[in-house]
């Protein structure tokens, strides 16, 4: 497998040891690492959801105020946005042509993800710190 694909590379490209984009290994690794971190977080979220669906405001607030739940929810939001930002960036880079459109969408993606993570963290902290005090 590796032998046949290597036949299509020029000697110069093999000597440089970089792909067509000249970078991207860090992006690829960050995607994989955050993806691994999200496996337990996503499973926790998927099985917490049904338990919380029927709860009223007070019981759900109490649940989120518990340290473990607050921390896991915070990690889910931060790592989730980090991961999705990297993944959606690749989708934009693959399909969107034109410098202005591409750069605009990449910036929008970054800003949406940072804003979303900040809002999510603030909401979790507010519920966790205030509900605990009540």
């Amino acid at each position, binding site marked *: 497998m590796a032998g046949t694909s290597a036949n299509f590379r020029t000697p110069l490209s093999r000597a440089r040891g970089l792909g067509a984009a000249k970078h991207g290994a860090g992006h690829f690794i960050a995607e994989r690492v955050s993806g691994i971190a999200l*496996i337990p977080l996503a499973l926790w*979220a998927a099985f917490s959801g*049904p338990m919380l669906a*029927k709860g009223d405001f007070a019981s759900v607030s109490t649940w989120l105020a518990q340290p473990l739940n607050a921390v896991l929810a915070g990690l889910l939001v931060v790592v989730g946005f980090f991961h*999705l930002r990297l993944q959606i960036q690749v989708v934009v880079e693959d399909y969107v042509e034109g410098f202005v459109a591409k750069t605009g969408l990449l910036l929008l993606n970054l800003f949406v993800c940072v804003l979303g993570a900040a809002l999510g963290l603030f909401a979790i902290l507010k519920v966790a710190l205030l509900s605990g005090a009540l």
Partner: protein
Amino acid sequence: MTLAPRRLNPVPLHESLRNNESQMTEASPGVRERPLSPHLQVWRWHVTMAGSILHRGSLIALYVGILILVGWLLSLAAGPDAYASYMGLLGSPLGKLVLLGLTFALFFNLSSMVRHMIWDVGKGFRPKFADTMTIASLVFAAVATAAVWLIAASTGAL
């Protein structure tokens, strides 16, 4: 001083032009011809392709999903009234349909990630095994989605 034109291609020009007529790619002189990237229209539909497209689709769905999650957290932070109306939105038939789709997207993304990690370490490229693994990731997503929604039904959340 005049420079002689540099010939990268040892093949005579008229001959290389004739060869190019039958070629799909325009390789630069002296460089071996590269394969064209596979394209939707010329590819037979197969399961790993469907899995790849669905993986990307699930990613875009989860982008919406995490924004819905942040909205839920914000409504909880905003107080009982905001929380009740947001839960009313999620509990509506359309809201439940969206949540059902997001549950599937979440589990399919998860199983696809594991599938791709197996490929990333260089294993599982035999077509039959790759197909089986893709079908398995779909089956896992369907079963896990059913499990979550059965749990939800058993707690009376539906």
